[in-house]
């Protein structure tokens, strides 16, 4: 997270840490319901040949390749309340396109439910689309300025950017921003997600119900925190049916 601030422990209880079995974290995720973690598809896809954009099942992480840790605040140090959970199943979005990052979503089914408490709680799914200018919070244990990794969970507070604006910003780079994506950040750059934050939550609070819901999942961007280079996230609202169909989760 570029130009972020430390998150206050327990304010993002749905944040999940995807880590290799050796404990090395590699992506973020969000707890949905009690058995599912939503993350980015590209977190679960490790192509042996980076140049080969096609999706081979052999490139996918299997359930026994990684684990999920809930209740985390510190990146490396263990937390008193952390819960290590094994994976039962991995489901990528059927239309995920590794080369364009379209539909960059993946669902991880947990073998057992975590114990919910003030540090482990699911986030809600959106009931309606998000509008330009809405302030969202993005959090993760990803790289900061000068490639340094944080000690603890970091977060930024940024506005959602107009779709056309974002599309135009990336047009010169020949990068397509599609309808299943949503952008956020400042025009002048600065606050942004970065490597290692992928899969983590972009969330905001519903003013009526006072509940936090997931707007997006950290997906891609050009460099980190650069001017006119907004962060691009997988947009949850248009994919809500798929998420509910696979996971059965309801608010």
């Amino acid at each position, binding site marked *: 997270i570029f130009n972020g601030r430390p998150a206050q422990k327990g304010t993002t209880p749905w944040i999940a840490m995807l880590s290799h079995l050796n404990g090395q974290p590699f992506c973020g995720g969000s707890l949905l319901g009690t058995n599912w973690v939503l993350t980015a598809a590209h977190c679960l896809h490790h192509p042996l040949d980076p140049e080969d954009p096609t999706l081979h099942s052999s490139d996918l992480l299997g359930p026994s390749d990684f684990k999920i840790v809930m209740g985390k605040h510190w990146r490396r140090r263990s937390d008193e309340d952390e819960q290590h959970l094994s994976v039962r199943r991995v489901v990528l979005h059927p239309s995920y396109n590794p080369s364009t990052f379209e539909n960059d979503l993946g669902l991880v089914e947990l073998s057992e439910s975590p114990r919910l408490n003030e540090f482990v709680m699911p986030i809600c799914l959106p009931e309606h689309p998000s509008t330009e200018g809405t302030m969202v919070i993005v959090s993760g244990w990803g790289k900061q300025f000068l490639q340094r990794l944080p000690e603890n969970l970091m977060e930024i507070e940024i506005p959602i950017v107009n779709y056309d604006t974002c599309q135009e910003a990336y047009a010169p780079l020949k990068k397509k921003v599609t309808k299943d994506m949503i952008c956020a950040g400042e025009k002048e750059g600065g606050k942004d997600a970065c490597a290692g934050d992928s899969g983590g939550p972009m969330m905001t609070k519903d003013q009526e119900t006072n509940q*936090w*819901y997931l707007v997006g999942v950290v997906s891609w961007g050009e460099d980190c925190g650069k001017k006119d280079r907004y962060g691009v996230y997988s947009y949850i609202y248009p994919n809500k049916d798929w998420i509910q169909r696979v996971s059965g989760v309801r608010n």
Partner: protein
Amino acid sequence: HTVELNEMFGQIQSPGYPDSYPSDSEVTWNITVPEGFRIKLYFMHFNLESSYLCEYDYVKVETEDQVLATFCGRETTDTEQTPGQEVVLSPGSFMSVTFRSDFSNEERFTGFDAHYMAVDVDECKEREDEELSCDHYCHNYIGGYYCSCRFGYILHTDNRTCRVECSGNLFTQRTGTITSPDYPNPYPKSSECSYTIDLEEGFMVSLQFEDIFDIEDHPEVTCPYDYIKIKAGPKVWGPFCGETSPEPISTQSHSVQILFRSDNSGENRGWRLSYRAAGNECPKLQPPLFGKIEPSQAVYSFKDQALISCDTGYKVLKDSEIMDTFQIECLKDGTWSNKIPTCKIVDCGVPAGLKHGLVTFSTRNNLTTYKSEIRYSCQQPYYKMLHNVTGIYTCSAHGAWTNEVLKRSLPTCLPVCGLPKFSRKQISR
């Protein structure tokens, strides 16, 4: 001189016709046609000597046993008859025509020229007497006729009366009504009806005749034509006939035969009886506490059944088994097949656990019997009840914890989403 004629038609003439006939002559023509026909005779020409009552010359037409006509003369007068245009019909299939002239004729008479023909007898129209007519339908045809019967009837061997197949009627109900066929219309002729009331041993059948009782009888002889008879074991009642109903009959038996016979004549409306079977009576019943007995009867007798059921919220307890109802039966010897069971209050038992939830009892001593109440709740603040149902369950009469909305299904605790305990400062605008 006799001439036998067997053709279906023919001609006969006086001797020497058309010349005058001789005196002192007699000729007889015996005309025989097949059964089912009669003979029609008519004269084309008739000219005989006239005499008082035709004592001289005459033509006499007769059958075996009656004279049909005697003609003579030229014209009909009050003492002699000429055939003229008249046709003579024989009642049966035989006719004899005799021409007789006496020994003297004052003048010459040309005699007669007659023709005869066989004419079909329409038995259906002509046979009025009961003995001979058809019972139901008569069908005439040239030379004969036959009878047929309405649907459901069978033509008897006399080819005239219509009987019914009414043997082998079996009654196994404890009450019933039996009538003669077609009752209250006249019963069929030539029929042998048998009715059997066959009940389980232990029942005793009693019979009672009702309404019309009309069986053909005879003033002197006891029921020589039609009769009804009742048998039970070695005992026999009847035969009965006439118009006076027999007295009620208590057969003291569980198996009774009723025989009804009709001959081939008579138009009588028959009979109707009702029967009832009763067995030994069983002791009176008292319903159990919180229960009832159906049907509720002042008296129960053999084979009667009683169904014991309990008030809402209670179940029948019989030999430590719980059931909705229990049936007992009055046995042949007047005892009940079982004792009356008791009614036990329904117990819903320990309520099932709820995932991510807990259950609390509304009563201090954690009652689980009918109408007791419990409340499910979810582990707050991390779980909440789906659909915000009350979580209140009552022990129903069916022995299940029941919620107004969810009925018997347990509530679902869903994880609360998006409400962290540690809230962050407001998001900036």
